[in-house]
């Protein structure tokens, strides 16, 4: 591809691409995010391509494999443009019919529509699906419009316009002012004002300054950064290039987990094509500004998402944090001024430059502007990635976007902020979601994990799960995190085994605070949060484990027994077949019984019973 030599040339190229595209031409967009690929979407893509060829429609119909659309629960997803017909849970067998009926005959296929569980209505268009309707997909929405491997697709939707605007006459100071005025805060967890970070790096002494994109996403259940990198890599590059110009940096890194092969692949292609077109490298868009980006693949240690550990890892040392009494903006990577921002933060930058700080300020709450992408997982009907304006309530996210709890069960808690966050109870669901509100109640925004739990989740068990995760991910350098988290977990082990004592709760709180105060980095400094927040909001569950030796949610194996309700049991043998330890006896059509000695409390019977006859006490 030809190098673009000026912002004007860029504009001409964008116009040329846009004009060459017929908006009325049918286009089948297939979600090829990691979630949909796991459903077997690659075969679906191959089959659609083959069918189009077979019907000799190659010239008349475009096929676009895009990044994640967010509604992972309902994949594989297909959107047919220009009508935006939304087909979900598409199977290989549906392909021929889709091409024949929808593409050739212009008819829709009812079977493939999404059915709104509340109204029972079939929904035809993507933007009418309740999951999408309440969202504000200013960042993530672009995923569905582009093939991440095509820079032309990105240019066609106005990509790199912000870079053109910046290099077409904005001073670095003006760029920083714009970001500061927009009040963009870091999306990686801390929520530090991005503009201030940029300014500090710009003002720091040193010739060589670094820009880093932190793509070491590691919270259990969180995959929004992954989906952005996979689905729209150029938006992150554009943000980084603008940041580099503002700060005066010539070298950048993307630190991405090696476990994200598609993200690594797509960002590698994006960097290569951006370089070929003169958007990266020497004399970007014909200016005197030089900047290039290297990819650094992380080995998967959770702690490497922490800035100083991330620097150590890039430098080739063991990924261990060091005390951050000197800011990274003064001495970061290789002891040089470094500006580290998260994937989503970088993706916000082009948008702010294009639409202006004033526009951006109009979204969100007083001190948290813009949108935030959450990965909504756990006991929720609509699992997926959602982008919402700051200030939306948890209730709206969980019930209106997420569609509530499956099986009509009762909501118990939502965990935000990943392992470092806290569990929020039902009484706080009306709370607006923003950086400060979440912190006030003992949780945090974090990078955007949102795990929903119902009445079958034991909060002591949940706290234990997160501690166990962090115990394994602690680097082991400082004592409070290495030893303290382990000892807290051992106390929780005892409680869930029915060996807890009254004094344990006070001890956990005391230890938690001391670990927060004493740890070297944010991993240890937030590790006790899941325990402290569950102690605050679900203390009665801890007390039930300790005083009554009961697990109210029926999770902790030492404290529960399985039995069969003789009245409800129809004698269908389903549970007996499911039982891996041969513990269920009973004749057909006669009530069954569980042999408590053989029973391993795995819950297979509970899941297999259609008559609610399995009782946990």
């Amino acid at each position, binding site marked *: 591809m030809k190098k673009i030599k000026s912002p004007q040339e860029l504009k001409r190229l964008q116009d040329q691409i846009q004009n060459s595209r017929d908006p009325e031409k049918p286009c089948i967009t297939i979600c090829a995010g990691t979630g949909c690929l796991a459903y077997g979407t690659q075969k679906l893509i191959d089959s659609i391509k083959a069918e189009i060829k077979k019907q000799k429609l190659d010239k008349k119909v475009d096929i676009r494999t895009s990044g994640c659309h967010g509604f992972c629960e309902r994949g594989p997803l297909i959107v047919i443009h220009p009508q935006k017909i939304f087909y979900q849970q598409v199977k290989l067998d549906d392909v021929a019919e889709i091409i024949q009926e929808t593409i050739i005959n212009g008819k829709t296929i009812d079977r493939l529509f999404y059915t709104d569980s509340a109204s029972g209505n079939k929904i035809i268009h993507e933007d009418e699906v309740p999951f999408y309707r309440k969202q504000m997909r200013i960042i993530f929405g672009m995923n569905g419009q582009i093939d991440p491997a095509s820079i032309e697709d990105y240019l066609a939707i106005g990509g790199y316009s912000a870079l053109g605007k910046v290099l077409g006459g904005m001073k670095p100071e003006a760029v920083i002012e714009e970001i500061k005025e927009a009040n963009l805060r870091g999306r990686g967890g801390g929520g530090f004002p991005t503009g201030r970070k940029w300014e500090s790096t710009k003002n720091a002494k040193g010739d060589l300054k670094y820009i880093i994109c932190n793509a070491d996403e590691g919270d259990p259940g969180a995959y929004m950064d992954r989906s952005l990198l996979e689905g729209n890599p150029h938006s992150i590059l554009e943000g980084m290039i603008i940041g580099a110009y503002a700060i005066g940096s010539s070298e950048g890194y993307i630190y991405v987990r090696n476990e994200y092969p598609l993200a690594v692949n797509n960002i590698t292609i994006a960097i290569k094509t951006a370089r070929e077109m003169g958007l990266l490298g020497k004399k970007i868009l014909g200016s005197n500004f030089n900047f290039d980006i290297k990819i650094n693949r992380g080995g998967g240690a959770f702690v490497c998402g922490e800035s100083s550990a991330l620097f150590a890892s890039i430098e080739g040392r*063991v990924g261990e944090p060091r005390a951050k009494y000197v800011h990274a903006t003064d001495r970061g990577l290789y002891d040089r001024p470094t500006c580290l921002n998260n994937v989503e933060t970088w993706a916000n930058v082009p948008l702010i430059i294009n639409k202006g700080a004033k526009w951006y300020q109009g979204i969100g709450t007083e001190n948290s502007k813009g949108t935030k992408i959450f990965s909504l997982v756990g006991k929720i009907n609509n699992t997926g990635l959602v982008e919402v304006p700051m200030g939306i309530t948890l209730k709206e996210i969980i019930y209106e976007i997420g569609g509530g709890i499956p099986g009509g069960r009762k909501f118990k808690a939502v965990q935000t902020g990943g392992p470092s966050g806290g569990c929020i109870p039902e009484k706080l669901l009306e709370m607006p979601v923003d950086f400060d509100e979440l912190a006030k109640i003992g949780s945090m925004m974090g990078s955007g994990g949102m795990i929903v739990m119902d009445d079958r989740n034991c909060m002591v068990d949940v706290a234990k799960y997160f501690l166990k995760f962090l115990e394994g*991910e602690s680097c*082991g350098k400082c*004592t409070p995190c*290495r030893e303290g988290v*382990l000892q807290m977990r051992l106390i929780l082990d005892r409680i869930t085994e029915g060996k807890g004592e009254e004094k344990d709760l006070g001890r956990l709180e*005391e230890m938690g605070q001391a670990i927060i105060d004493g740890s*070297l980095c944010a991993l240890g400094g937030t590790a006790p949060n899941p325990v402290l927040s569950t102690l605050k909001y679900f203390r009665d569950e801890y007390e039930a484990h300790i005083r009554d030796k009961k697990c109210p949610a029926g999770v902790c194996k030492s404290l529960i027994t399985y039995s069969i309700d003789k009245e409800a049991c129809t004698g269908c043998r389903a549970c007996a077949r499911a039982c891996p330890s041969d513990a269920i006896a009973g004749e057909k059509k006669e009530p069954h019984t569980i042999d408590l000695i053989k029973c391993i409390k795995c819950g297979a019977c509970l899941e297999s019973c259609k008559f609610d006859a399995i009782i946990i006490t």
Partner: protein
Amino acid sequence: MAIVTIDGRKTEAPLGTTIMEAAREINIHIPSLCSNEELNPYGACRICMVEITQGSRTRMVASCIYEVADGLEVKTSSERVLKVRRLVIELLLARNPNHPALTKIARGLGIENTSFPIDFKGCILCGQCVRTCQEVVGALAIGFESRGNTRKVTTPFGESSPDCIACGACAFICPVQVIFMEEKDGMRKIWDTEFPLQKCNKCGQYFAPKKQLEYFRKIANLPEDHFDTCIGCR
């Protein structure tokens, strides 16, 4: 120079001084386990935590790393500080319940025994041995293996390290003396490896590992026979 207030006492300290050093100058003792003036600041044991106030912001920092600044107010034994120290020492006692270096600090904090189950490891992972080997000796023969509470100090892959010069600096620096070193029949044993010792050509006594002397000789560019005689006999 910076004027700082430590436990209510104003003192002046040159910029670049750590809080721990500035406190020591006015006889305020802050316990430490991983810091050593011969080594770069590390800040891992967290026994030296102090509470600092700068302007309207109060926070906890490791006094072995944090440097003084004008107007800094430091509390070295507030309740918040003591809570962290008590936890840290109890956690370390669970790894090594009887060593005087730990029990002495514990008693100073009013702790007789740890309330945590004892899982004897000996090593408290202060990292002084690893850092000495790297920063002072320059051999890089030992390092940390694994992470979290499975972390331990070892030679690469737990095998005989070709980089170890048997100088014994690691054993010497260890505050809880858990690095095994033994000399017998002209051999020094350390890190599960035996190293021959050099015999003095005058007094006939073994005086240092041959590998260590060779290492020094090369660094200082000394003649081949420089270490044939022990220091006492020269």
